[in-house]
């Protein structure tokens, strides 16, 4: 009996081929595996003009966006290339830590922060269920163009939290000679 005869070529190669196939499959799995940081990415909520967009603890309604060559607030005035956005915001479930501290405009890969030079909706304390409304002003370079993304959040650290996003086409914005930066007040008059 030659049951212990050398097995045919195919049988001998089979484990090697299987091993190689597993290595190749592992390579594809590694390619498809997302990076560690994906677990912390923020949850974007797309906002449309005039409609409330609800995040975890932030609901925002973007009413208006204009371009202006000059902005003023009380006695303060500034010239330049400005984008002024009219927003209303409220908290949803907790007033703890509920202030609109993160207001960014991303243009052409660069992140602009809402201006701190005047009193606006930036850093405004939010109320649960009752909206506060005001302006956010962004100072941009003169050649700013293209699509901009407005990102609003309660905290600049947006890991694993909601971010309200609103797309603005800078080229299609109405241009005003001057625009007021309105401080926060109740959205509906008492």
């Amino acid at each position, binding site marked *: 009996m030659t*049951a*212990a005869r050398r097995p045919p070529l195919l049988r001998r190669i089979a484990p090697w081929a299987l091993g190689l196939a597993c290595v190749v499959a592992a390579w594809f799995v590694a390619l498809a595996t997302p990076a560690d940081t994906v677990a912390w990415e923020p949850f974007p909520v797309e906002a449309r003009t005039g409609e409330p967009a609800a995040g975890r603890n932030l609901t925002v309604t973007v009413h208006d966006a204009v371009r202006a060559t000059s902005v003023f607030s009380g006695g303060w005035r*500034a010239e330049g290339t400005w984008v002024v956005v009219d927003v209303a915001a409220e908290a949803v479930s907790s007033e703890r830590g509920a202030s609109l501290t993160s207001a960014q405009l991303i243009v052409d890969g*660069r*992140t602009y922060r809402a201006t701190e*030079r005047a009193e606006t909706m930036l850093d405004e304390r939010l109320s649960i269920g009752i909206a506060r409304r005001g302006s956010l002003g*962004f100072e941009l*370079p003169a050649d700013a163009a293209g699509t901009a993304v407005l990102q609003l959040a309660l905290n600049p650290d947006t890991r694993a939290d909601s971010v309200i996003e609103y797309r603005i086409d800078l080229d299609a914005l109405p241009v005003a000679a001057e625009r007021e930066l309105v401080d926060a007040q109740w959205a509906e008059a008492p």
Partner: protein
Amino acid sequence: MSPPGRRRPRRSGSRRAPARPVAAAAARHSWRGVGAPRHPYAVVVTAPDLDSPPAPPARATRFARLRAATDRVPTRWFAGIGTAVFLAATAAFGGLEAVAVAEVPRLAAGEQHVNDRVALTVQRAVLLDTFPEAGATADPAQGERVLALLVDAENRWDRAEMVQAGGGVASTIGVEALKSTPPTSVARYDDASRDPWLQPLVPVALVLTWIVPGDLFTDGEEIEVVLSDQTLWSGSFVVDGDYWSDPRPAAVVTVPIEDRGDGS
């Protein structure tokens, strides 16, 4: 297998070699589902085993030849060979001498210095009795005065950044005569807002103020302002986010002081 009189490195595998061919045969039998014992050294002597196939001895010879070949490699010489290779590589790259430190370029007031983070132009240096609007209130009783530096800054990074007196962009501007101590305060020149934010590619005129002893500087004296470049680091493990660190002097601006007394 090895030449007599030569010390062969001990390899534990060499002692097991005789047992392997038989164990291999036993393992092959159990794979076929016969239920032979799994112990590697088990020797199942059955009829097929007595017709030992030629394959295991062939394998043993191959391994033995390989082992004999590697035995001949002179391990004692590894350190010497490694050092020679390293020296040859460094010679190819220019030698082991330290690299000469590059000269830092000297600029005059009004000339711009650009790096990846910010573009700075030191415009003027002014000596004042006090400058509370910019955040520096000097105490005349102590003989203090205020040195104000007007700097045009343009953020060249990809995100807005706050200029604070304690760190950040302000820390890259150092007055040589003050041993690069951080300024007392930083403010915008146009609306005097303190700790301003620099938006990307939007130029801002800044005023940096230091409270200095009144007799340290005189009118017309030239001071040197050292501008440093930093490297952008990305936190990956214990730190999250991007930050600038590792400053090194990149330009020296010579600017004359104007003594403006009690205001301009």
